[in-house]
């Protein structure tokens, strides 16, 4: 039973990454109608920016948490301005192919220069060590990841669902022409939204840098699972993707305990089941 508690907690930690990443995807899909396959590559870039900041500039983890999302967010906004915006009215497939291509190029470039086995990034001194919870040894850093990502997820949800700015955003997705008639610069808002979604991915990247290796393929390994999370949660649903992210982390954690061989397929089995029973996802609405 103790082991089970531990697995639940570990699942929640992984769930934090799924939640942060699928949240970014959901925001981008909900507002821009783009299936952002470059998300994994941008997550990876976040981790690399943190690595560069530390090793080239001596700038620590805490600053990286702020700087990396901004840097990668700006990179994302340039992508949106120069490429993605031209695909706005087209079929989803075009956006998917373009972003997939971008992901391959970015990963290829990083792999060319930094190899595949990754670079070390250590846990900041303030978060080193761990505490004994009785049923498990919880590294402080992991606890921090769960709490921090929960806060970020809820803040993002609040921003989009409960504020004036969020209301504009949602309206702009519904009917851009009308919102423009009210004097709101819709293209700029969309660019900023893409920047926000991408920034979330980069933030997840910084969070994961001390846990996993900073590797060019770290995003590629994760992105497929995250897409399954988004599909299960319902494309474009903010709350849906947060809850599904954490829930699937837990389910995956339990699978790792009961039948480890299936731990990297269980998410997809669930995805198939959800698609069969409720194709719009658990919280999605029919288009």
């Amino acid at each position, binding site marked *: 039973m103790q082991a089970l508690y*531990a*697995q639940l907690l570990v699942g929640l930690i992984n769930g934090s990454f799924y939640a942060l990443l699928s949240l970014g995807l959901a925001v981008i899909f909900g507002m821009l109608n783009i299936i952002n396959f470059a998300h994994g590559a941008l997550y990876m870039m976040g981790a690399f920016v943190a690595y560069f900041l530390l090793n080239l500039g001596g700038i620590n983890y805490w600053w990286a948490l702020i700087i990396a999302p901004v840097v990668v967010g700006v990179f994302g906004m340039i992508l949106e301005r120069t490429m993605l915006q031209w695909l706005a009215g087209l079929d989803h497939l075009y956006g998917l192919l373009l972003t997939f291509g971008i992901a391959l190029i970015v990963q290829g470039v990083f*792999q060319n220069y*930094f190899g*595949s*086995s990754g670079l070390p990034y250590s846990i900041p001194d303030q978060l080193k*060590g761990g505490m004994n919870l009785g049923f498990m040894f919880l590294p402080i850093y992991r606890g921090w990841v769960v709490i921090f990502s929960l806060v970020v997820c809820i803040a993002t949800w609040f921003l989009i669902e409960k504020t004036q700015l969020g209301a504009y955003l949602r309206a702009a997705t519904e009917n851009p022409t009308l919102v423009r008639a009210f004097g709101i610069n819709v293209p700029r808002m969309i660019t900023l939204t893409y920047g926000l979604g991408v920034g979330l991915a980069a933030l997840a990247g910084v969070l994961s840098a001390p846990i996993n290796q900073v590797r060019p393929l770290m995003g590629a390994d994760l992105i497929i699972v995250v897409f399954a999370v988004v599909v299960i949660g319902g494309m474009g649903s903010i709350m849906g993707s947060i809850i599904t992210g954490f829930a699937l982390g837990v389910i995956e954690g339990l699978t790792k305990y009961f039948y480890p*061989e299936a731990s990297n397929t269980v998410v997809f089995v669930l995805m198939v089941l959800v698609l069969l029973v409720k194709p719009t996802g658990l919280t999605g609405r029919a288009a």
Partner: protein
Amino acid sequence: MKKTISALLLGTAMTLAFAGIASADDKNVKIGVLSDQSGLYADLAGPGSTLAAQMAIEDSGLKAKGWTIDLISGDHQNKPDIGTTIARQWFDVDKVDVIADVPNSGVALAVNNVVKEKNGVYINSGAATSDLTNAQCSPNTVHWTYDTYMLAHATGQALVKAGGDTWFFLTADYAFGAALERDTTAVILANGGKVVGGVKHPLNTSDFSSFLLQAQASKAKIIGLANAGGDTTNAIKQAAEFGIVKGGQKLAALLLFLTDVKAIGLETAQGLNFTETFYWDLNDKTRAFSKRFSEKMKNGAMPTMVQAGVYSGLLHYFKALDALGANPHDGVKVVAKMKEIPTDDPLFGKGVVEANGRVTHDAYLFEVKKPSESKGPWDFYKLVGTVPGDQAFTPLSQSTCALLKK
């Protein structure tokens, strides 16, 4: 009618004659380096293995003796089906004579069958499974650098003798992991230890916390990592995070490469014990080779034992070609020649290619240095012991290879 027949006969005779001339002078060979060029094993093999092959061609001296040696490389992406497709295409279309490297035991075993079917030469450096020279041995295969038997015996035995008599395995869920766990378990049991549990994890796992908690709960003295590359580095890094080593359990990285240590960083990796058959800083010869190698690598990396094995394996192959004089296209014949000549090269020293295809040479027990002991960017290992070549690998009497039953 008569004319036609005589013309045909003449034509046939001429063709045969030309074929005879061509084969008598045939000094063309083509080498295919098949590796993981972009995945989790790309740093420990990959482009570095191709470079090593290139250097072996330059150093062989065969070009001066009139040989033409071509080199191509391919990416098997860690998928057996892709590996065998490339291998078939290389033999059928590109007329490749020898396939070298092939990390990933799953792919390596699949390619082993293709090479045997096509009567090519297979010099495996990257794969670990000892099956290549046991149950699945082939007259076309030479297994150069290391194998699971060697790793299990050198590292496993040393740890059990030092008091690590209860083990829990974290095993990569494919041919390699299974072979390494099997061979290590045999050593543990033979030395009076026992295995209290284990987990099979999927290849390319980024999060090991779940598995590490299970290992922690097992109270085993040693947590054996029967995995490689990115899986091993993630497991070691996260084990440090979960306070496993501080809690009194010891990690046994059954297979660890130079590039893995680089990736983990000395801070986390210090004190790990493991076995390799090559290290760049062993002696003047290895240092000289490694310096040349490193200068040509894009990121200045020193060679791993796999890359060194590609170099030495091919050097030995070239010696066999030189001894044969010409006509390098009968794989079984070339490998038989390789078995005849004792191995002796600057990187692995003296040894033999045994009848089952296993190459023997010394194996070294290393310990990762403390950050304070390291004097340079690749100064990572302390030598703590040497297992002589004739003891490091499967004794022929225990090999299950069918070639030995003649």
